């Protein structure tokens, strides 16, 4: 294990830990959504760092990059995780937007953002208080 791995994986996973802690300990919907976006960022970073190869260039050929089409192998990083992250970022955005709208709707109807009565119990049949 090299130092860079410690910094990258350690830092990213601390970030994810912050997000998980937020989800577990907060009941305010906006804060929970913030925690989710923190986790999303952390997971995206994880994906990118999985594709990193030390000392390699970005996977673009020609122009000023100094890499021509025949010598990409062995001189650039893995392009797949970067493509996946692009997808994952957009997905994270869509999820956040919808969660926020649900929070707005919940707030308008109940006047509260607390998910306190969100039951993990089995017989919680009480009404949402106005």
């Amino acid at each position, binding site marked *: 294990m090299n130092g860079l791995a410690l910094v990258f994986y350690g830092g990213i996973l601390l970030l994810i830990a912050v997000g998980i802690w937020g989800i*577990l300990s907060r009941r305010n919907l906006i804060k929970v959504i913030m925690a989710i976006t923190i986790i999303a960022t952390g997971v995206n970073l994880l994906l990118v760092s999985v594709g990193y190869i030390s000392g390699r260039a970005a996977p673009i050929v020609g*122009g000023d990059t100094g890499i021509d089409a025949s010598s990409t192998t*062995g001189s650039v990083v893995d392009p797949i995780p970067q493509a996946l992250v692009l*997808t994952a970022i957009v997905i994270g955005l869509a999820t956040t*937007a919808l969660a926020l*709208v649900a929070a707005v709707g919940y707030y308008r109807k109940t006047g509260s953002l607390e998910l306190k009565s969100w039951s993990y119990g089995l017989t919680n049949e009480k009404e949402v208080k106005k």
Partner: protein
Amino acid sequence: MMERTTFHRSLPAIALALLFAATLFVAFVEVDFGEPRIEEELPVNYQPGEEIDTENITTPGLRYLANSSEETGSANLVTAVVVNYRGFDTLGEVTILFLAATGVGALLSFIKDDDEKKKKKILPPSLILNKGARLVLPLIILFGVYVFLHGHLSPGGGFQGGVIIASGMLLFYIAEPTKGASHKVISIIESTAGLAFIGLGIVGLMTASKIFLANDFAGDWGEVGMLVSAGLLPLIYIAIGFKVGSEMTGLVEKMRGDGS
């Protein structure tokens, strides 16, 4: 109201979160960081530029590096993966954004019913913001168009270009709180761009390979690195650029809240 969480009450949550992160850390450290794992199938002492036998390569990442320029005609390998090799994912991703934008609009229309009466007062923006935005907006949109047109050549692409355009529109909305693009126009651009993406995919079903989203014109037009090259790839990125631009604009517009 302030949310008060005493430290000892959140201890279990902290412990659980750290345990989770530690488990993941141990697992990820097993995945060597920064090592060229995708290149295990290359011959020993391989030097960049040497010929390799791509027939025997089974690792997708490695084969993309070796063959991409030839197979897709794109200078940007990430674009080649996003639009061509994994184009099906991208179609799904565009759909997700489309669903979210449509859903936000549909759900907000249920919320709006309730507070139709409460019209909020809008503060007029400052002169500098108002005039400055008018000056910068065309440039931002031009830059966005540049980014998605050059998606196969340089960093960026349809998503990035579309988001740049939407950020310009966001500035416009801040500068002109009472004005907005028509919902109808946004919706038409959105749907048409989506249909164009699927249409370009169906072109693949019609041409030589009979495979959805296949890029059968990869080598037919221009050289690698030219603006006109990479077959259908830039066309798909243009459709994505329009789609993302209009969807993000729509999201901002709908979330602005006062309707129009």
